[in-house]
Structure formats: structure tokens, C-alpha cells
């Protein structure tokens, strides 16, 4: 485990949210207080409104990645380069347009969830 792991969710219920970009799962409060470890440019900790925009409570499945670099699952899910932490397998929404633009400005790639 190379990098500092992300915050670990403190509960397991409905207050959980997933980052729409990196799929990190934390509670709303955690996002609000410390933002997303993988996506600091969203600056959720500074702008609390952002939390709602950047995260979603609708996600499917949880994967705790202890060792992203050497986890096949993390690689398969393309979260291998993120910090260790709890992620979700899939979010069903796309990042709002303005935030997608933000990503582009920051040269952060963003891939919307695939719709089948």
C-alpha cells in the first residue's frame, strides 16, 4: 500500500455516497469535510454544494481495495491508480456537465458510466 488510504466509510447505510468520477465511497459528511481523495480538484471540502453534485447515493456494490496496485479487481474496474479505500462497482449517473467541463479544464480524464 503505497499511498495513504482514503477515509473509510463510518457507516453502511443510506448516507453513503459515491464520487461520480472515481467512485470512491464515503459518507456525505466525510465528503463534505475532506472531499474526495482522488479528486481534490472538485474541492468538495470547500464548496459543500459540490458534494451533492459530485457524488451520488445510487451506486451498485462496494469494493474495498486494500492494495489497488496489485488487485486484479481494481485493475479490471480501472481504479487501480486510486488510493486504497472503499469504492463502488458502478455508479449509474454521469457527472453533471459543468463538472465534466471542470475535469476537462483540469485535464482530468473523465469517463461517464456506460449505459447498456
Amino acid at each position: 500500500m503505497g499511498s495513504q488510504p482514503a477515509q473509510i466509510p463510518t457507516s453502511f447505510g443510506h448516507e453513503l455516497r459515491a464520487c461520480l468520477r472515481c467512485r470512491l465511497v464515503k459518507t456525505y459528511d466525510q465528503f463534505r469535510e475532506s472531499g474526495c481523495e482522488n479528486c481534490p480538484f472538485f474541492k468538495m471540502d470547500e464548496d459543500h454544494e459540490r458534494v451533492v453534485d459530485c457524488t451520488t447515493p445510487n451506486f451498485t456494490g462496494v469494493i474495498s481495495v486494500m492494495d489497488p496496485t496489485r488487485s486484479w479487481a481494481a485493475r479490471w474496474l480501472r481504479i487501480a491508480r486510486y488510493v486504497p479505500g472503499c469504492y463502488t462497482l458502478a455508479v449509474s449517473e454521469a457527472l453533471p456537465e459543468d463538472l465534466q467541463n471542470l475535469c476537462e479544464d483540469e485535464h482530468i480524464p473523465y469517463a461517464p458510466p456506460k449505459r447498456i
Partner: protein
Amino acid sequence: MPRHRDYDDDDDEPEEEEEDVYEEEDEEEEDDGGKAGRKRRRSDFIDDAAEEDDDEDEDDDDEDYGGGGGGGGGRRRPKRRTGSEFFDLEAAVDSDEDEEEEEGEDDFIVDSGADIPDEDGARREYRHRLLPHEDQEEDLEELTRSIKQRYARSPHVEYDEEATDVEQQALLPSVRDPKLWMVKCAIGREREVAVCLMQKAIDRGPELQIRSVVALDHLKNYIYIEADKEAHVREACKGMRNIYASAKIMLVPIKEMTDVLSVESKAVDLARDTWVRMKMGTYKGDLAKVMDVDNVRQKVVVKLIPRIDLQALANKLEGREAPKKKAFIPPPRFMNIDEAREMNLRVERRRDPMSGDYFENIGGMMFKDGFLYKTVSMKSIRTLNIQPTFDELEKFRQTGEGGDGDMASLSTLFANRKKGHFMKGDRVIVVKGDLRNLKGHVEKVEEDTVHIRPNQKDLPLTLAFSDKELCKYFDLGNHVKVVSGSSEGATGMVVSVQGHVVNLVSDTTKELLRVFADNVVESSEVTSGLTRIGEYELHDLVILDNKSFGVIIRVDSEAFQVLKGVPDRPEVALVRLREIKAKVEKKGNAQDRYKNHLAVKDVVKVLEGPCKGKQGPVEHIFRGVVFIYDRHHLEHAGYICAKTQSCVLIGGSRANGDRNGNPMSSRFAHMRPPPRAPQSPMRSSRGGPPMSYGGRHRGGRGHDALVGADVKIRLGPFKGCKGRVVDIKGTSVRVELEAQMKVVTVDRNHISDNVNVSVPFREPSRYGLGSETPSHPSRTPLHPFMTPMRDPGATPIHDGMRTPMRDRAWNPMSPTSDRGGDWEDGNPASWGSSPQYQPSSPRSRAYEAPTPGSGWTNTPSGNYSDAGTPRDNGSAYANAPSPYLPSTPGGQPPMTPSSAYIPGTPGGQPMTPGSGGLDMMSPIGGGDTEGPWLLPDILVNVRKSNDDTVIGVVHEVLADGSCSVGLGSSGNGDTIIAHPTEIDIIVPKKSDKIKIMGGPQRGATGKLIGVDGTDGIVKVDDTLDVKILDMVLLAKLAHA
């Protein structure tokens, strides 16, 4: 192993690390003959892009194959570092993060094999481009350095964001990857376990050698742990509260690993007007229609038929505590706002700002048009494979949804169509798009495209449509078969088509069926559908478990519809086979309102009750209830249930037939040999002047003496059954069975009747002759004449003579005349043959004795003179008041044809000569004068007291009709005097010498050279002519 040391210190690897590497390589070689590994490494050396990969690879190999020696995941890093250092210092400088990402990438390259150089190169470029931006997140300095050190090779972290399927494919797990293990955990705690394990991993550091933990939403009770070894998994699970460590840890096969992580896409596009079903709660399983979709909040608004208990709702809203948790779910019912207001519920009318529609709001619930509009989570509805039933759709349609709504809802139906729904030649109609309502024939079907040939002119020869735009089409009057759905198997005729719905009239039940056009195919087949389950058949009268009873009016695939025997209202019950207790076979009887006797098949009219005015034949009588079949009655398969007391027998019904017809035969019945007596008690019950037979009943059936006879089948599958002969064709006889209400065909030789009793046979023939005479009127005068003759015979002696044969002979006729005249259906066969009326009167016995005496001897003249027709006499004897009697002219017509039957006997002839004429003129005459009719030298059975019979030869016919008979087959024994009624003629067999007993050839002898049905082929001795004569005319000649 040195690897056990820290994994953190990347940079300053001591020399020994190098050694480690070597060591390790050696190990590897030893362990698994790592030639492959080495080779790979060499090639990696060549490929500058893959130096590190190589290391990683090596590590992996090591881990994978090295057995327990690998230790922990954490240990590898230092080793790798050293390894890379060995050829490339760059790696040592890189940040951890970078490294890791690199690693993933490396794996990728290695896994996919180094043989995709193009891609590799491309990616390198890409990385290069991306690198600066990417690494902004990271320590810039470090990154820059690393870039330089790597000769501009970037970690290309983000490549996967734009991963194509091919690249994803390249990520497929290999044997070198960690494995997934399935671990049982507490139900509902899947996420919690995953999170806890994460926490544990953080707390314990590298000690915990698992790589990831997966908790799936759709898989309860299990989590997946990714690790290299099962031991690691066990280690990680140790001490976890919600993990059942004792349970078996299952390895996920490598091929299924991706399945674990592939999440069923939630993003099923829910469109408006889609049919869905509720997954849980009060409405679980209910059909709902999507009215609005909020993809962001993952909510949908669905339209439901409310299941609301208004009272409970009122209680709740008023704060009154609902006393008990309701154990039942209210049935779906449209919300009636007025009703709600009456319950003092607060109804607010609000306008939905979005749609502009008005809703009634009651206690937070939104109603419109009686429907409940409910916002639910997408998770709580089922969207796949929804197949609304017709009824459900019908309910939704009720509240004035236009045809368009109907069509829209079809999309769901269409989606569920089976493949190959359309076939070449199907008639279809376009239901969507510009060409809507265009009709045509299917020409060709490809996958989802259907080519149709439009019926319209001026259109291209064929047009291609998506199968979703087409719908089968039927015209009125088409005969179709239902191929799926609840009424599967039924056939019927299309009576109307409403959009996608076809109404058809079932062939069996005559009921209207509503089915989707999709479920119907054109078919000329006329199936009654099912008519039978187990031993119960359509139209059977059955007793149900709960003591009620009814008639089966419809047979579904698994159940019967039974019209219950409740007279007040039609009550139909759906019963399963096991709920039926028994079938009622017996034919009941009852009395109508005016105390007329009712029997099955009598035509009655309902005088009161819901079915007042209906009429038809009685099909079943049971416990004071009749089931009437009215073919004009369209419900309940035409069956009507009524109290017997509410019915009245109407004209020409069977019962009358009995009344009129039976009396006549009754006379004979009582004369019948005892064993047969019970078979037609009714008839025997009323004495009647037999003369009627002469004119009427002889009918066209003359030569089929057996028709109408009661017989017993003595061979074959129906052995033992009794029945009545309805028809004779050649040597086969059609017998209507008494017990089963069915007509079977049996060989004539397989029935036992008293055909052998010769006298009766003869009589009919003679009657026949009599009947042929055109001079009916003459008969009457003759009668009185005859009576005296009969007198002697009328006494018990008759019994002997009037063998059942005669009854048989008569039976068919009485029906002919009576029914033929009165009832449209007057089919002599059916009437005559139906067994019901025989058993219907038990009185026969009682009458037996008195009738002959009183009836005949005492009041002969009165009767005859009173009534011109024999019929009347009959009635006088039996049910004198019956008004129907005179009304039966039917007897006449049949008389004429009869003459044709007996060859060579022109009607009048027999009448003229004295005695013979007398006989023939009327049946009675025949009956009474049987004595003289006998001829000397024929072989007879003489019945003595009771049933003993003795064979004998008639020596002489005395003036009073009795015969002197010499007993013994040659007539050499004692001579006795026997009355004709005691004498049975022995029917000759083939090749027997015979004497002709009637007709112009009377008295002639001959040889019976063949028997064809009721006809005997006779070679007459004198003339050597071959004659075909009725068997009843033939008697066996005693050996001279």
C-alpha cells in the same frame, strides 16, 4: 528472505537486494523450472518499455508459483525495486503512487503479451502527452524527474479512462492474478464486512495480504475477497464478527471472475408508458405504468390501481390508532374521491407544477382518475419481462385511456414476443408510424425485420418493418385458435377486433373470449378445447365436495366451470378435479308445477325466476332442480338451472310420449317374459288398445323389428350393458346404452335379446302388413270384432305370446308417431331409443295384472267406440286426460312407407281373408289371433308354468287359437293344448327348413339359405324362388 523487510524504502536498496533478486530467480528456476520466466525476462530486456514489467512479472510469477515462499504482498516491492534498479534506475526514483500505477499497466502489457508493439507504442505516446496534467495531482517535482529518468515514458495513468473493449479484454484475469474467494457472511452485512475489512487492512498494514473485498448488492450472504491464497483470506477473516470463518471458502473460477465484477446495468432505460411490476410492499406484484422517470434521483412515478382501505386510512389520518397491524392487503380498487370525502378524509386538489395535471391529494397520496400516482425508487420496480395479462390491461384501460394509450402499452407486449412470432403468410397490420393501419401479408422475416406485401395498391411490392410495428390482424369471421394465454387451445370465430384485442366466440362454450391478437392463429381446426378431465366430461352432472352439485359447463386446462344447482341465480364455480366428488349418472325424475311427471329430455318451460320464459329439454334432474339446455341461451353453455316446481312441461315432450305411446306398448309389456319386464315399465304401466300400432307405429321401420328393442350386450367391450337399439345396419346394431347415454355399435350377434322368441317377431310383421292397408277406417269397426277374440287371450296367457320382441318392434313406432307429430326434433330413433323412459315408471308391475283383464275384457266396446283412433283408447286406459293424445296425427305418415318394406305384400291383401285379415288389420287383432296364425309342423317352445319351456311341434291349430302341440323336437311326445301366448316360435338358423308364417306365401315351406340382418333369404320349396322375407315370418319346420 530479505523481502520480509520493509517495502517502503524504495530508493536506497542495498546491494544484497540484488543478490536477493538473483536468489529469487534461482529459486524460481528451481521451483517451477522458470525457463519461461527467464525467457520472458530476456525479451523484456529488449523491449525497453517493459523493463519494469519484467520485474513485476517476475514478482508475480514468484508469488503465483513460488508457493508459500512468497510470503506477503508487501514484501515484494523491495525486491522488485532492486530488480529494476538493476537495469534501470529510474524506477527507484518514482513515487509510490506512480509505481503502483505503472505496475498495473505493466501487468497489462505483460498479460497481453509483448506482441502488441503498436499499441504499446501508441500508448507510450499517449502517456507522454498526458503525463504533465496527470501528475499535477502528484508531487510535480518528483514527477518531472521521473519523466526525465524514464526517457519520457509516462505512467499513462489515465489510459483506462478511455479504455476500449479490447483493452478491457486485455485486463482479463490470468493465472498470475490474485484470485477471488467467496466467503459467507452475515446476511445484510455485506457492505459492512467489506468496509470493516478495509479498516482492518489499514490498521494492520501489510500484514493483511488481501487485495480487495467485494460486496455485491444483489448477492446476499456472501462477499468476495481477492487474495493470492486461501490462507490469506482466512487470516483476514479471523476475528471478524460477521464472517462465518468456519464456512467453506470457495474459489471463484478464473473464468467467472469478471462476472463477479460486472454489475448488471441499472440504467435500463425506463420510458414512460412502460409496464412494470412492483417489487415489494402492499403493491408487490401489481402491474404499474411508468408515468415519469427521474433518472438523477433514480425515482419513477408509477400509476397503480390503489389498494387502500379507506377506513383504515381515515383512522390513521385522524390520529386514531389502527388497532391491529393489518394482516390483509386491501384488494385493488379505484379510488372514489366522493367516498373518501364521505369518510371525512381531507381531499386536496392540487395542480402538479410539472405536468400541469390536477391530482387529488389524500394523506400525501396522489390520485388521478381513480389511479394512485406513486413515486417510487427505481429499485423497487421490476422492469424486465413484464407480461401484463389481459385482465390487468383491461383494468388500466377502463378509465378512458384512448386507443393510443393502448397502443403505447403494446410496446411492452411486443417486447415479450417470442422469436419467430410472424410467419410467412400471416396477415398483419401496421400499428405504428406513418403507414399505420396498412394491412398486408408477411413475405419474409429476418431477425427483427418483417417484410410485408401491402394489400394497398400503388405501394412498393414489399415493405420492411420492424416487428414491433406490426401486429397480427384478423378479419371478422376468421376461425382462429388461441395458442397461448389462459384460454389456450380454444378455437372460435372472430366476432370483433378492437385494436390488438380479438373477440372470439368459442366453439365449445359459445362464450366470448377476449384475447390478444398475438396469441391467436388462424386455424380451421374446431376443437372443443378440452371436454374432459379425468372421468368428468363437459355437461356432466357432478357433486362437489361441499355437497353442492352442478353441471360442468366448461373444461379449462386445469379446472372445470360448474353451473351450480342453485335455482335462484346462476352461480358458476371454478372447481378443480379433486374438488369433484362424484358424477351423477342416474336419471332422476320429478314433477313439474302441475304435477306432470318430468323425466330427462322432457321439454319444459321455466315459469318463474331469473330464467323465466326459457325452455328446452331437461338434461339433468337432481334434488328438485332441473338443468335445462336452451340452445338460445348463450351463457353457461346454454344451461339453465331451475326448480322443478318452477317449470312446466310443454307440448310434445317426452313425457307425453310416454303417456301416449307407452300405453300402447304397455299392453305388451306386461306380457313380456318376466326378465324383460323391468326394462319398460312405463310402457307397460298403462294398458292401451294395441290397435294404434297397426296404423301408426308400424311406420317405416317395419322390417327392423329389433329397432327400439331393449337388448343386453353379451360380448365385446360393452358386455353386460343394456340398451335400446336405435338403428340397424347390416349385421351391426347401434345400441344406446342405458347407463351411459351413449350410442355404441355392436355386432348383431353380440346382443342378447329374445330374438329367438319367434312369436313376437312375427307379430310386428303382421302389424306391418296391417298398417299398410290403406283402409284405416276399416279397422275401427273391426275392433269390436276383435275384442272377443282377444278376450280369451287377454288373460295371463298373453304373457306368453307377447314376448319382448313385440315390444321392441313397437317401441320405435310409438315414438315416431307421437314425437314426430308434436316436436320439431321428433327423431324417432332418439326418442325411441332413449332409455330414460323405460325406467321412469315403476308401476309396470302393478298394472300388469289388471290391465289385460279390465282394459280389454271389460270395456272393450266403450273404448273403441268412443275414440276413433286407437290412440285415444290408449289414453283412456292410461292417462285419460292428456290433451295431447288426439293431436298426434304423426302416426299416419309413417304408415305409408311401411308398405314398401315388406315385399310382395300389398297392404290390403292380408286383410281380406277372414282370419288372417282380421289379424292383420290391427295389431290387436294380430295379437289376439295369434293362435290361428301359427301353422302346423313348426317347431315351437311351449312355455309352461313360469319359465320352463319345452320344445314341441305344433300339430294343429284349434279354432280358439290354441294349438295342440306334440312335445319333443319331433313332436312325438305327449300332446298338449297350448294357448298361443304360451308358444314361442323357434327362429330358424341358416340352412334350416322353414315354414313361412305370413304374407302371400304363408304356409309355404322352404329353406333358409341366409340371414341378412332382419331379413331371411329363403328358397321356397314349391317354386324354387328365392325370397327375402322378414325373419319374424319364418318358423323352423319340425323334422318330418
